[in-house]
């Protein structure tokens, strides 16, 4: 019995993840808390979420000028280690200039669109579903637009379907609301 395909394992190595995260630091920050607008913080994201995103970048379902070439050379074990390392980091809030009117409208939209049903109360995420709370405002807008445009490389279609009714104003309001939530429960 010796099937190949990388002989991957779920038993990830945190220390290896820390070493392998070296090239990620310039954009995502030393511990996964990014400061560049438009770049997501990945500290504290669920392991399944980060690992699936890396797979999607590697197989071309998700595209980004920085991430696609980086993910192209990752093994399954690299992905597991990186996902485990970032999941173990403490997420910090991103500085954002949010408007109270937009935040209030976004809160109501999040209720209407049932975001908590997958992203959990507080929008802190779990398993394959990302934390949105305290995420970078610009990034949130970018991703919601991409889901609406059906170019975001959805895992199973849930977000692509959910984003279809959103107007540009809705997207902005939702992002303002999500960016104000505390990233840790």
């Amino acid at each position: 019995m010796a099937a190949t395909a990388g002989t991957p394992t779920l038993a990830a190595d945190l220390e290896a993840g820390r070493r392998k995260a070296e090239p990620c630091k310039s954009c995502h920050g030393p511990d996964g808390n990014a400061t560049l607008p438009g770049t997501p913080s990945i500290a504290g994201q669920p392991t399944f979420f980060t690992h699936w995103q890396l797979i999607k970048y590697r197989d071309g379902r998700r595209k980004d000028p920085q991430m696609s070439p980086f993910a192209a050379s990752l093994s399954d074990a690299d992905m597991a280690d990186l996902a485990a390392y970032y999941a173990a980091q403490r997420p910090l809030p991103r500085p954002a200039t949010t408007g109270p009117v937009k935040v209030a409208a976004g809160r109501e939209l999040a209720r209407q669109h049932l975001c908590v049903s997958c992203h959990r109360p507080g929008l802190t995420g779990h398993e394959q579903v990302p934390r949105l709370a305290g995420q970078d405002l610009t990034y949130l807008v970018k991703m919601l637009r991409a889901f609406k445009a059906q170019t975001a490389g959805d895992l199973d279609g849930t977000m692509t379907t959910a984003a279809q009714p959103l107007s540009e104003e809705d997207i902005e309001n939702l992002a303002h609301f999500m960016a104000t939530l505390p990233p840790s429960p």
Partner: protein
Amino acid sequence: MPRIIPTAVVVVLTSVFALVPYVQGQQAPPPTWKQGQPASMADSPLAPVAQPPAPKAPGEMPVDKIKVPAGFKVSLWAHGINNARVMTWGDKGTMFVSSRVAGNVYAIQDTGATREVKVIAKGLNLPNGVAFKNGTLYIAEVSRITKMVGIEDKLDSPPAMEVVYDILPRDLPHGWKYLAFGPDGKLYFNIGAPCNICIPPDTHANISRVNPDGTGFEYVAHGVRNSVGFDWHPETKDLYFTTHGRDWLGEDVPSDRFDVAQKKGLHFGFPYCHQGDILDPEFGKGRSCGEFAPPLIKTGPHVAGNGVQFYTGSMFPPEYKNRIFLAQRGSWNRTEKTGYKVMMVTLRAGDVPKYEVFAEGWLQGGQPWGRPVYTQLMKDGSLLIADDYAGAIYRVTYQR
């Protein structure tokens, strides 16, 4: 000229969905899995089991916990196949394996002692369906069926995917397909309901077929919520299929179904009647279950029956001839998990079918370590079971 698409495609969905009943400022439809949840259960912790992003290593799979009848033995046949789903054999002995959310199609070459796994297509749109005929592999994604001609000779540089049929609905909920050749040489597949419970468009909630050249599309069975597994009786040639029942009607209702379609055009009840005898509280009003084809077997609530496999091999005892294996991926919409088994059906003339457990043990302490999802026979008559949760394939053998 056939239209050619690159093997690794980035899926761009280009059209509207069947169901976007939304008015700005009003309550939006919930995600599919939450549709139909009563308000009283809004805080229910029940949610679909998350698909792990990586397959398990051999040491992480307690294969010895899988129980089978006396004389049978289970071993790990292949691993490292992320999200392994449908298995189909090539003419020259290559095993092709689909996936769903992993977006890959794999080829496995069995060298006897080892199995080598190759990814032959990636980045596809829920490519659950694979079927093989005359040197050609057919792949069903959400809205199209494509083919790779002569693939078995080109596993290291797979040929382009040529479109067979690409005007299927683009809805992602229940949009993934089972695909198989019927005894009539046509390609059969499901078009699932784009919801948990709804009045589906006329184009959805059915089993359909098309000629392998893309002509002659027609509906075969109606009122089928989502069937992702079927097979044909080796003698009568009737179509037998599993169907997943709706969620959020209760812990123990409705039962999933195992059905037979002895002719084309029957209606199997969705969304009006569930399990043959329960009218839907919302959509069943004014209807009667007597209008619809009854299930052959109520297979149990939330068990999620996928693969259907008539046993036509010679390794198992003689009474196994034409018995049916049903792979049940297992429940999420139930407090105590159920399914996660391979069941066995014995059809009996003039009597109800016998329905019993063949293999179980993927649930340990109420939690799954694997999910049996499809089966396939080996040439020697042993039974392969694909597990999409562990990314592995097991082999069941029998020795007197």
